[in-house]
């Protein structure tokens, strides 16, 4: 039981605790703040796995982008101080049952599969990511990169079109 193992358990408990609070809290703004902490914990897990680049992307995009976007939309659409109505008891029970059954099933699958991790050293250089991202060769990722940039542009234009205020026709 060395410090790495203890750190892993601390990070995991943090992620799961804040995640559970994010889906069960009654007030919507608190739920968004718990989600933010959960995302920070996931970034910490990436740091623990020595994936500094992915951790940085996680903090920039999720914590700095998506959660802030969600908070803004809460301010635009909700009375954020009020308690949300609680779900009916049968719904809670059956959802809990479904989640626990699914978790048990997946965990048994994972546990019995027996991954053989070879413990080969893994080092991530950011320059390798960049080179591979723009590689036009056999295992390069230039095509998905271009496709995803077009998709992002289409999504942004679509968002503007959807959320734009339409002037009424009789004017």
């Amino acid at each position: 039981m060395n410090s790495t193992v203890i750190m892993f358990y601390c990070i995991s408990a943090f992620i799961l605790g804040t995640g559970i609070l994010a889906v069960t809290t009654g007030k919507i703004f608190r739920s968004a703040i718990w989600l933010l902490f959960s995302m920070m914990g996931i970034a910490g897990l990436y740091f623990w796995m020595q994936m500094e680049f992915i951790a940085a992307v996680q903090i920039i995009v999720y914590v700095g982008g998506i959660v802030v976007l969600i908070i803004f939309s809460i301010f635009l659409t909700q009375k954020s101080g009020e308690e949300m109505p609680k779900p009916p008891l049968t719904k809670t029970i059956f959802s809990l049952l479904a989640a626990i059954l699914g978790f048990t099933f997946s965990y048994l699958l994972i546990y019995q599969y027996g991954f053989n991790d070879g413990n080969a050293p893994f080092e991530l250089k950011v320059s390798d990511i960049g080179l591979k991202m723009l590689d036009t060769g056999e295992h390069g990722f230039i095509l998905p990169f271009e496709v995803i940039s077009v998709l992002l542009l289409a999504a942004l234009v679509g968002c503007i079109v959807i959320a734009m205020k339409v002037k009424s026709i009789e004017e």
Partner: protein
Amino acid sequence: MNEINITDILLVSTALFFVGVYGFFTRRNMITMLMSVELILNSVNINFVAFNKYLFPQNLDGIFFTIFIITIAAAEAAVAIAIIINMYRSHHSVDVEDATDLKY
């Protein structure tokens, strides 16, 4: 117990996935449902990174899948919030029970 292997990380990501599923089932507010979907997407990202690090350390494919999933999640959140704001403008509510115009 002395060494963390891939099974432990997969256990954490599975638990996070089903926490998100539970939230998706119980919540009725569209914004909180969107938050649950973000939790689910994040657990998938943890899986890809863990597979890349522990099973295929000579490749970078898991890293690229994670980066692309993060991009798609950002686009998805932006579109979802645009739809939510538009629905709030027309229905004055973001509850899924009120979104029944296309039901019958």
